C-alpha cells in the first residue's frame, strides 16, 4: 500500500512515543476534569442518568416541538438528518404517562424510552463493572499469551490509551455514555488488541531484521484496521442518513477508537517493542 509510508527506521523509540503520550496525558486530564464536574469520566446519557428519550421523524422545527412539550422538562433536542431526538429529565409517573399519551397523539410513530433514575444508576454501576472486568480479562489473556512483561505490558498500555483517548473524544464531540456506546467500548477492548497481537507476534517470533518486521507487520496491520474502519464507516454513514441514533453512536465510538488504535499500535506499541528488542529482549 503506497499511501502511507511507515518509516519507523528514522525515529528513535522516544520520538515515536512522544505524540501518543502527549495525547494520552491530555485525554486523562480531560477525563479527570469530567469526573470532577459530573462524577463520571464520560457524561452519561438517558440510559444511565434516567429520563425520557423520544425519537421522532418529523419536519417540525425545534421551536414547534418546544411549544408542544412546554409543560414537560424537555432538556435537549438534537437532530440527525430528518430525525429528532428529544430528551426529558426525570418526572413523576403521572407526568410520564401524560407525556406518553401526548406523544402518541402528536407523533404516533415515535420511539419512546423512559428510564427511572434508580434503574439508570444500577445499570451505570453494572456497565462500569463490565468495562473494568473486561479490560482486566483482556490484560490477563495478553499476559498469558506473551508471557514476557514488556511486550505484554505494551499491548495492554496501548489498549488502555485507546480507551482513554476514545472516552476523551466522546466528551469533546458530545457522545454520551449509553448502553450502545458501552457495547462499542467493549468491542474496542476486544478488537483494538488485534493489530497489537499481530505486531508483537511478527516482531518477537519471526526471524529477520527488526525494521523489516515492523514494516511487514504494518503492511498487514493497517489493512486489518482499514477493513474494520470501512465496515464501521459504512454503518456510520447509513445510520446518519437513516437517523438511527444508537447505531450512529456505536459506529462513531468505534471510528474514534480505531483511529486511536492506529496511533497507539504503530507509535506507542511499536516504539516500546523497538526499544525492547534493541535492548536485547526477544530474539
Amino acid at each position, binding site marked *: 500500500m503506497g499511501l502511507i509510508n511507515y518509516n519507523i527506521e528514522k525515529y528513535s523509540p522516544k520520538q515515536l512515543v512522544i505524540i501518543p503520550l502527549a495525547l494520552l496525558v491530555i485525554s486523562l486530564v480531560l477525563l479527570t476534569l469530567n469526573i470532577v464536574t459530573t462524577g463520571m469520566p464520560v457524561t452519561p446519557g438517558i440510559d444511565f442518568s434516567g429520563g425520557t428519550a423520544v425519537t421522532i421523524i418529523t419536519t417540525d422545527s425545534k421551536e414547534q416541538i418546544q411549544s408542544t412539550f412546554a409543560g414537560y422538562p424537555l432538556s435537549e433536542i438534537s437532530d440527525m438528518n430528518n430525525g429528532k431526538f428529544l430528551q426529558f429529565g426525570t418526572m413523576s409517573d403521572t407526568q410520564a404517562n401524560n407525556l*406518553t399519551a401526548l406523544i402518541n397523539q402528536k407523533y404516533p410513530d415515535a420511539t419512546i424510552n423512559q428510564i427511572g433514575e434508580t434503574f439508570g444508576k444500577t*445499570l451505570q454501576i453494572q456497565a462500569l463493572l463490565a468495562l473494568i472486568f*473486561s479490560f482486566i480479562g483482556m490484560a490477563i489473556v495478553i499476559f498469558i499469551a506473551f508471557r514476557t512483561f514488556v511486550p505484554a505490558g505494551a499491548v495492554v498500555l496501548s489498549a488502555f490509551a485507546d480507551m482513554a483517548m476514545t472516552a476523551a473524544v466522546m466528551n469533546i464531540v458530545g457522545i454520551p455514555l449509553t448502553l450502545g456506546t458501552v*457495547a462499542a467500548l467493549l468491542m474496542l477492548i476486544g478488537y483494538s488488541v488485534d493489530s497489537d497481537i499481530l505486531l508483537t507476534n511478527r516482531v518477537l517470533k519471526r526471524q529477520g531484521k527488526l525494521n523489516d518486521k515492523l514494516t511487514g507487520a504494518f503492511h498487514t496491520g493497517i489493512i486489518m484496521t482499514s477493513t474494520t474502519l470501512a465496515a464501521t464507516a459504512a454503518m456510520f454513514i447509513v445510520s446518519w442518513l437513516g437517523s438511527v441514533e444508537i447505531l450512529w453512536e456505536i459506529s462513531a465510538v468505534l471510528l474514534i477508537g480505531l483511529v486511536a488504535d492506529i496511533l497507539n499500535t504503530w507509535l506507542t506499541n511499536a516504539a516500546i517493542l523497538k526499544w525492547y528488542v534493541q535492548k536485547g529482549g526477544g530474539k
Partner: protein
Amino acid sequence: MNSKELKHLLLDWRIATLIILVILSIVAIYPHFENGDLVSNLQYGLDLQQGSWIQLEMKGEVVGYTTSQQLEPFLTNLSQQLGTQVTPIDATHLEILKAVPQDQLEAIFEANGGNITSYSPGVSKNTADDVKLILENKINSLGTKDAKVNTLIGFNNVARYIRVELAGVDMKQAQDIVGKQGKFEIRIVTTNNQSEHVLFGNDITSVQTPSQEPPGSDKWGVSFTLSPAGAQAFRNAAISYGATTDPSNHYLMMLLDNKTVYSAPLSTDLANQVQTQPITQLYASTGSGTYGTQQATDLEIHLRAGALPVDVGIAATGGQSAPMGERYKAMALLAGIFALITVGLVIYYRYREPSIVLPMVCVNASEVLILLGFIALIRFQMDLPTIAGLIAVMGTGIDQLVVITDEILHEGKVPSPNLYLKRLARALGIIVTAAATVLIAMFPLAVMDLSTLKGFAIITILGVLVGVIVTRPAYGKIIMEILSK
C-alpha cells in the same frame, strides 16, 4: 481449476463443514414470501418491531443478618413490626417483601436483638421465579403472543428487576396488561352441571406456597386463608347446596376469568368441620409427584389471581412504533450490505487479485450468514446493538483472513505444503490470541444481564467462535489451493 480439483476441494472436511453450515443456516433462516412480503424465521427485538417493554422493580430486600435471639420468635417479631412476610433464604439471609430503607431496617433489627450485615434491594430467586410465572400466566391468559418475561438476577442471587416484553402492544396497553388483576371465583356444583357462586378472590386473604400434606408424603397442595365473611359465605353455600352431606355430587370449582382451574369434592374431614362452624384455613390438594407439584404451583398463581407476592413499580419502560421499527430494520440491512461492499473494496484495493478477494468476501459473508442462521435457530431476538456487533464481526472477520493471507504469502508466492502449514499455524496462533481477548472482553456482559446488551455479547462471542472454529480453517484451505495455482 478443473472439476477434479474442485471436487477434491469440496470434499475437504473444513470446506465441507462450512458449506453444510451455510446450507443449514439458510434452512434455519428460511426466507420466503408470504402475501407478497419477504419474511423469515429471524426474530426481532423491540427496537426493530412494534411493541413495548416494561422493566419492573420488585420492592423488597434481601438482608444478611446475625442474631443472638432464637430464630422463630425473632422472625415472628420482625414480621409483625414490619407488617410483611419475612422468609429465611439460608442460614444468614432473610427476604423481606416490602420496601424498607436500610436505616429503618437496621433500627428494627437492633431493637429485636439482631444485626444487618448486608442489604440488597430485590427479592430471592424463588420469589422472582414466582413473579415471572404469575406475569407469564397473566399475559398468556390475555392471549398476547410473543411475550417474554426475564428476571435479571444479580451476582449475589438477588433479583431486583424483571423485564416484560410484549410485541405488537403499545405502552399503555402493556401497562394495563401487567397491572391487571384476574377475576377469581369459587363456585359449588348444584345439580345437572349447574353451579352457584360462593365467593370472589377478594375474600381470599392469603395464599401459601405449595406444601406437602402430611409433610414429607409427596402429596401436594396449596393452603389458603379466607376472610371471616368469606368463611361464612363458604359454610352457608356448602350446607345449602349439599356439599357437606354429599360431597361427591357437589364439587367445589375454582374459576379464573370464568375458566375452571380447579375442581374437587370437599374431603369428608372438611365437610364435617364446615357443617359445625365456619373454616378460614383451607387446603386444596392437587395430587402427588411432579404432576402434583406443578398443579400446586399453577393453583397458587390462580388463587392469587394475578396479584404478585411483592409490590412492583415501573423502573423503566419504552415503546416502538411499527413504521419506526420497519425503518430501523431497513437501515440495519442497508448498513450490513454497504459494510460488506466497502470491506470488499478495501480488500480489492490491497490485493488487486479477484481470486483472493472473492473467496475472502464470500467466506466473510458466509460467517455472517451462519451467525444469522444460529440466531434464527435459537429464536434470539435481534436488536440494533446485535446488528452493530454483526457488522463489526464482518470488519474484524476479514482482518483475520488478511492475517492468514499475508502470513502465507510472506516471502514468495508459492509456499511448499510443509511451509504452508507452518505459516498457517502461526497465523492461527495470532487469530486465536485475538479471539480469546474478544471472548474475555465480552464475557462480563454475557453473564451480567445488563439489559439488552446481554444478547449483543452472546452474539459477538458466537461470531468469534464460528470464525475460529469454522470459517478461518476453511479459508486457509481455500487460499492454499488458489495460491498453489
